[in-house]
C-alpha cells in the first residue's frame, strides 16, 4: 500500500503531467525573463506544498461521479413497471405440477413460452378464488378475450436466437439454471425496463457491476459462453445465436 502522501503527490503530478502541455511548460520557463522571478517561485512553492486544491477537487469529483455511476445511474437507466396483475407462481406449481404444465414444448419441438389466454381459460373460465388479481384477470382479460400483456423478465433482444428445446430437451438442463427460483415466487417483482434498449434488467442482472452469485443472476452473452465453454469445451460460434 502506498502512503497517502505519495498518492496525493501522484495525483498532483498526474494533473501536471496530463493537463500541462509542453507549450505551457515552455511558456512558464520562457517567460521567466518577462515575469517577476519571485512571483513565479512563490507559485511553485505553494503548488508543491501539501495537498493542492486540484487534488481535492479531483477526489471530490471522482467520488461524486463514481458513486453516481454506481448508485444513482441504475435508477436513471431503468424504469419500473408493474405487471398487469400479480401472478402467484408457487400456487400454480403446487396446483398444476412442474413448469411444463404451462410452459410446455409444442408438438413441433418449439417452446410455447408464456401461456396464451386460451390455456389459462381451460381452468380460469370463471374466477378461481377471490383475490383482487383474479378479479382483474377475469374482468379485463378473460371476459374481453384479450391476451394478458405480461412483461417478460427473461426476454432476450431480437438479435438473439435461443432454443429452449436444445437446452431443456437436448442438454437436459433444468429451468432453475437460467430462470432461478421464479417457480417459488408468490408475487411478481416490478419489471425494470432499460430505457435505452427497452429490455429487462434481468438480462444484465440486478447487480450493476455485472457480478453474479448464481447462474441465473444474469443472461448476457458472456454467461451463455461461460456455460457453453464449461459444458461443451467451446464458447460457440457467433452465428449459433446471432443468425
Amino acid at each position: 500500500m502506498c502512503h497517502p502522501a505519495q498518492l496525493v503527490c501522484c495525483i498532483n503530478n498526474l494533473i501536471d503531467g496530463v493537463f500541462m502541455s509542453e507549450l505551457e511548460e515552455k511558456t512558464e520557463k520562457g517567460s521567466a525573463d518577462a515575469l517577476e522571478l519571485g512571483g513565479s517561485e512563490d507559485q511553485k512553492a505553494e503548488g508543491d506544498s501539501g495537498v493542492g486544491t486540484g487534488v481535492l477537487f479531483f477526489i471530490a469529483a471522482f467520488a461524486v461521479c463514481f458513486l453516481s455511476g454506481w448508485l444513482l445511474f441504475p435508477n436513471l437507466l431503468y424504469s419500473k413497471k408493474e405487471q398487469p396483475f400479480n401472478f402467484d407462481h408457487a400456487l400454480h406449481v403446487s396446483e398444476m405440477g412442474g413448469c411444463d404444465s404451462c410452459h410446455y414444448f409444442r408438438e413441433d419441438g418449439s417452446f410455447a413460452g408464456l401461456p396464451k389466454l386460451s390455456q389459462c381459460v381451460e381452468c380460469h373460465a370463471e374466477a378461481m378464488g377471490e383475490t383482487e388479481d383474479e378479479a382483474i384477470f377475469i374482468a379485463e382479460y378473460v371476459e374481453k378475450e384479450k391476451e394478458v400483456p405480461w412483461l417478460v423478465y427473461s426476454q432476450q433482444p431480437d438479435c438473439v436466437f435461443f432454443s429452449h428445446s436444445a437446452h431443456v430437451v437436448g442438454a437436459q438442463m433444468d429451468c432453475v439454471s437460467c430462470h432461478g427460483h421464479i417457480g417459488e415466487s408468490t408475487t411478481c417483482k416490478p419489471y425494470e425496463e432499460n430505457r435505452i434498449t427497452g429490455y429487462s434488467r434481468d438480462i444484465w442482472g440486478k447487480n450493476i457491476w455485472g457480478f453474479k452469485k448464481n447462474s441465473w443472476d444474469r443472461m448476457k452473452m458472456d454467461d451463455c459462453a461461460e456455460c457453453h465453454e464449461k459444458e461443451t469445451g467451446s464458447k460457440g460460434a457467433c452465428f449459433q445465436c446471432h443468425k
Partner: protein
Amino acid sequence: MKVDRRSFLGLGLGAAAGVAVSPATWKLMDDSSIWTQNWPWTPVPIDGEVTFENTVCSLCSGNCGISIRKIDGRPVKIEGTEGHPVNGGGVCLHGLSALQYLYDPSRIQSPLIKIDGAWKKVTWEEALAHAAKALADVRKAGKSNAIACVTGNDRGTVPGLFKRLTTVLGSNNYYTMDTMEKTWTATVDAVNGVNAEVGFDLKNSDLILSFGTGFIEGWGAPIYNFHVNAQRKTNAVKLIQIEPRLSNTAAAADQWVPAKPGTEADLALAICGILITSGRYDAQGVKADDKSFAAFAAMVKDTYAPAKVARTTGIDVGVIQDLAMAFADAEKPLAIAGRGRGDTAGSMREFAAVYALNCLAGNINAPGGLWLMDKDPGEVWPAIEMDGMATDGFARARFSDKNTVDALMAMVSESEKSPVEALLVYNANPCHTLKNAKAVTEAVKKIPLVISFSSYMDETTQLASVVLPSHMFLERREDVVLFNTLPLDITALSTPMVKPLFDTRHPGDSVLSLAGAMEGSIAASFPWESYDACLEAVKAPVWESLSQEGVVMKDPVSLIKKIPRVDFSLLLKDAVAIGAAGEEKAYPLVLIPVDNMRLSRQVAASPFAVKTVSDRVLKGTHSFVDVNPETADALGFSQGDDALITTPVASATVKVNLCDGIMPGVLAMAQGLGHTMVENRYVGGKGVNVNELVGPVMDAISGLDAAWGIRAKLSRV
C-alpha cells in the same frame, strides 16, 4: 483555499476517472450496442406458435396448392404445398406474395354507392337495397334481358351462382372472359364434334413444340411447367419455341425458331404437309380413311408447301424440314398453342393447325400427348324458379351468340344508347384486359348500372355505380375447379386463412343477399341460408372428401372413344388467317403485346412483383417498347429515347429498348401495366396499358378475340 486552474483540471479529471471506473460507462456501452442492433423503429415480427394451413391459390388459372405459414394464427408467409399434383411444393412470385394482395392499398373496404360521381360508403343493407331496386327497375321496364353478367370463368359454385342469378333475373347474357382454354374447346368441337376440355401431358412428352406459348412464363399451370422445364435434361425432353421474340421460354428452349408474328399456323400446317408427304403420321389419329382427310392433306401439301411457307414465315425451308423431322422422330411429341400466358383466346386457325399436328402424331389421349377430357364438376344444382319477367327475358335473343365479352362491348360501343341496362362484374376487369381498353371503358361508361363485386378498385370497378366488395381469396371458403391445360381433374377447397380485414362479403353471400333483397320469386331459386350451405349442398356428391381432404382428384374421363370424326375442313374454308390491323404504308411496324411472368393480368400486380420487373420493361412510370437495333437505327432511335408509338387504335409515349432478341420490324410491349388505380401507388400510373394500343379481331369461327398484334409506327415525341 485558492480555486485555480488546477482545481478545474482536478475536477474534470476526477469526474472523468470517477465515471470511467463506475459501472455506468461499461453499461452504457453495452446498452448502446444492443440498441444499435435492435433499432426500436424496425418492425419485429411477433413470435408465436408456427402452424401451416393448406389452401389453393386463385390468382391465376394454375390453382397451385399453397401452404400458409402462420405465427399465432397470423399469416406471414406462403409456400407451395409439398406433393401437390399441380405444383409439387413450388410457388410463383405472385402466389408467394399473395399476402400483399390481402393488404393491397386498393382493396375496397366497404360497400360503395356512386352519387354524383363520388363514392359514398354505405352499409351492406343500403348497397344491396340500392342494387336490388335498380335491377328491379330494369326488369319492370320489360328489359330483363338487358341485364348482363361477366365473370372471369364459369367454373365452381360462385360463378355458378352468378350465372343462376342472371338467369333468374331473366337474362341469357352471361359471359366469361376469354382464355386459350375456350379456343381449345372450340377447336376440338369444330374438328371432332365433341365438347371436351383439353389437357397436355407435358411431363411425359419428349418433344414440346411450342407455338408462341410462354411455356415457362405463366402459360397453363406455371409451376407445373417449371417442374417440367427443370426436368428436361434429366428426362431428355426437347423444347422448341416458335416465336418472333427471344422470350425467356425461347431462351431456355433447345431451339428457338423466330417466325414472323401471326404466321405460326402456316408453319404448323407446313409441318403437317411434310409429315403427310413423307408418310410419317398416325393414320388412325387423323382417321385417314375419311374423305375430309384427303382434302386436308391435299390442301396442306399444296397451299403450305415448305417453299411457300418459308416466304410467309421467314424461316428457311431446311429449318422447316428439320422441325418436321424432329417432330416425326420424337416418340411422344406434343405441339402446344396459346400465346404468352394463354390469357387470351387466339385464332381457331392457329389452334386447329397445332391440333392437326397432334392428331398426325397420334398422341391424342396418349401418354405425353394431348388429352381430351370430360371433367365432372360434381355439382347438383336445384331447379330454378322463373317468374313471368324472367321467362320472357330469357326467351329473347342473346346479345351475342358467342360467349365473348368483346362482342358485348362492341355492341354497346356501336349503339348510341347502351342496349345493356345493367352489368354485373365479378372476377374480371374488362376495362383493362380487353383489347382496345379505352373503347371498352367508354362502352362501360354508357351502361347505366354497373354492379361490381371486385375486391379491388380496378379500372372496371371505378366505373361502377354500386360496389359489393368481395373477400379476397385468402379470406374465403370456395370450391376451386382446376381450369387450365393440365390433364388432371381436380377440385380444391379454398379455405379462409385470415378473418376478413374489411367490411367485405363472400361473393357467393353477396349474390344470395342480392337475390334476397329482390322482390318476387327471385330468392326462391337460392334456398340456402348462406354461401357455405350452398357450397355444401351443391357440392354434395364430392363434399365429404372435399371438406375432409381439401381436394378431390379424379382421373379425367378420356373422350378418345367418343370422337365421332376428325375433320379439319375448317382449315380449308372458314378459318382465315388473322392479320395485324392497319395499313402497312402508314404503319410499317408490327406491335405485339407480350406477357411478363412478373406482371399479373388478372389482378393488378403486387408491389413486390412490380419491383422485380426489369428496368428495360418499366422504369419509374415509363413503359419500354422492344425494338431491334436495326429497326431503331433506320428510325434514328437510341436506347432510352422517348418515342411516340402510334397504332390505328391509339398512341402512347414510350421509351425505346434496343433488343437483339426481337425480329426487325416488330415491336413488343409488356401486358399488365398502365393501371389507373390511384390508391395503389405501387401499381397505379406505372407504364402504358398495351391493350389500349391494340384492337380486337374477332375470329370468324369462334367469335373470340384472336388479335395477336397490330400495325404500328414509331416517331419522335
